[in-house]
């Protein structure tokens, strides 16, 4: 059976700055593939510049001009989205794929009452009377936990707190009963107690409605709270994908392991935090070979020149790293693994 959403080798490019000696085209998303199954939550995790938000915009065909998807396939239920006429894509957006973003304030119209905005969204996609749409909006407000929904229907965005605005956004995204919700940093602008409320709400909606979620975030705590599967992005590419449990228990890619080791929440006070040296390269200066090579503690001969191929260390896992591939080959050859990645691998293989 085909996945609900499937990306295959998607590349999204912007024109480069040739005056400054850059390349003609800069690929901010550079060969991203993944599958999102019906009713599941896949998290795209990465730091700024990893291409995670641009991947979401590519799916929605909302990449800001002059950027565009130049290669690859994006299929919803087996249907190629990149080939759809503009009008059909517009109907599908919102109808089958809902969206929530980091800043609810910028996504809501400040001079229209929030209830009317949701009513408008419903009537844009379905032929229903204004009264029916309003009744549905009221029910949605109650479902997403907006207290006193009748009064809130007539509120303007500025009269609502950040948490309530994000609930309105979620109500709007769900109003057309989409199969997929794309949530781009849905709680980053919120306080931690409000964030906990919104994460709980998203989990409950995903369970009750069976909505699949593509969660985009830099925060591994949020990933742990929501995701079934995790794809780690670095410099426009997926470097590792695994189930939530496997990734947290045994991260394999040196970048993933570095990322987890850099989190203060997992560190012992008084010890030094693990640093990933250097900074994320900018898209017009991506290194050849493995893009993490200049910052990697486990690099060796092939890393600088050759792109690492996919390695499947276990069922449902993939990783792109020469060191992991080498250690896996060694482990299979019953030789002792050499790096610490190898130790984790040996465990993984033994299972």
């Amino acid at each position, binding site marked *: 059976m085909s996945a609900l959403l499937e990306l295959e080798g998607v590349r999204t490019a912007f024109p480069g700055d040739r005056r400054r000696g850059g390349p003609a085209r800069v690929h901010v998303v550079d060969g991203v593939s993944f599958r999102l199954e019906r009713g599941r939550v896949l998290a795209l995790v990465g730091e700024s510049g990893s291409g995670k938000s641009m991947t979401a915009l590519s799916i929605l065909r909302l990449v800001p001009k002059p950027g565009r998807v130049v290669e690859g396939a994006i299929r919803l239920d087996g249907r190629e989205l990149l080939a759809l006429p503009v009008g059909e894509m517009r109907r599908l957006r919102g109808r089958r794929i809902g969206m929530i973003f980091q800043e609810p304030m910028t996504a809501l119209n400040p001079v229209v009452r929030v209830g009317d905005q949701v009513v408008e969204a419903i009537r844009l996609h379905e032929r229903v009377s204004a009264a029916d749409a309003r009744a549905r909006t009221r029910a949605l407000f109650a479902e997403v936990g907006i207290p006193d929904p009748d009064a809130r229907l007539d509120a303007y965005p500025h009269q609502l707190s950040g948490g309530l605005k994000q609930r309105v956004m979620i109500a709007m995204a769900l109003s057309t009963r989409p199969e997929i919700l794309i949530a781009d940093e849905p709680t980053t602008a919120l306080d*931690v107690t409000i964030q906990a409320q919104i994460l*709980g709400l998203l989990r409950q909606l995903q369970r009750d409605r069976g909505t699949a979620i593509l969660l985009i975030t830099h925060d*591994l705590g949020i990933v742990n709270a929501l995701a079934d599967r995790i794809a780690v992005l670095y410099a426009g590419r997926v470097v590792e994908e695994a189930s939530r449990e496997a990734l947290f228990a045994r991260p394999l890619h040196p970048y993933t392991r570095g990322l987890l080791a*850099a*989190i203060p929440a997992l560190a012992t006070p008084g010890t030094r935090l693990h*640093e990933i040296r250097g900074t*994320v390269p900018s898209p017009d200066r991506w290194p050849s070979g493995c893009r993490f090579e200049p910052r990697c503690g486990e690099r060796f001969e092939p890393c600088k020149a050759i792109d690492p191929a996919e390695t499947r260390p276990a069922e449902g896992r993939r990783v792109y790293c020469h060191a992991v591939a080498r250690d896996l080959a060694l482990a299979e050859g019953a030789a002792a693994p050499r790096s610490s990645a190898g130790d984790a691998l040996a465990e993984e293989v033994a299972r």
Partner: protein
Amino acid sequence: MTAGEPLLRVEGLTTWYPIRQGLMRRVVGHVQAATEVAFEIGTGRTLALVGESGCGKSTVGRSILGLESPQAGRVVFEGSDILQLPAEALRAARQRLQIIFQDPLASLDPRMRIRDQIAEGLRAFRLVSNDAECDRRVAALLERVQLDPDVMDRYPHEFSGGQRQRICIARALAVDPRLIVCDESVSALDVSIQAQILNLLTDLQRDLSLSYLFITHDLSVVRYLAHDVAVMYLGRIVEQGPTGRIFARPAHPYTQALLAAIPSLDPGRRIEAPPVLGDVPSPSKPPPGCAFHTRCPFVMERCRRERPPAYPVEGGAQGGGTSACFLVEPGASPPVVVGAEPGREAEPAPTGA
């Protein structure tokens, strides 16, 4: 400065902003940003001031630097109350008190070379006598924050976010401060870069016996870095104490809710129910009694009428700090603790001299 006096002692600090309305700009109310805030920071120590947006933590930081005009209170820094200092003496005190903000790009001048921005303080306080000496000092400061001294002729836009924050740290260090207020200084950084800056701040504290007032909403950074924690809610400190005690045995229901709300990184443990419901009330009209009573799962009748004073909390040789909650009133039954980290009450290793 007398022996035993902490580097900074804040007492009864109250900073309210007037709300003006109408043609006559009449004062119709106040945003009660900070009310009766009190804490101390010793030499080489880090106090984290934590709370959610609008709790007043940044107002406290700005008040300490003399950037606000508090209605009441004392800010005793190195033995003198900086709120009472005459202009010239305040200027001198400012040299020893520096601040680093969240967004380094906003606090650096985009049209000024890095060299001149770092040198500004050196020149203003006449810490260097000529240009050559100035350049030597700037180079040393850049090395101190692990940047190549060759970059001093560049402009802020040529640096990454993490590098810009290093530049801001170098600029703060230029005038040889004793206390640095870090206002969400690592909050906007990616985690791999955040780790670099946190390690740098730790090294500087160890080498220079710096004290930090670390203002943040990020509790995992607090747990890692701070010696002591003060939790603010709607303008008041509701709980304070040693970091180990706060995280192992949070006494105030708000602190418990904050800790329970941190998304766990343990794959076997996910947040199930949200720890508190509802939103933070407006700081211009805080609820009567205990300000947290509108969201508190343990609310009692008297919480709606009376404001609980800061009661001592048991624990440790240095004491467990205080909690402004009737649940810890001497003789009250102990609260049910949600979201605590049992078995982790060790103090962070002292980094000060």
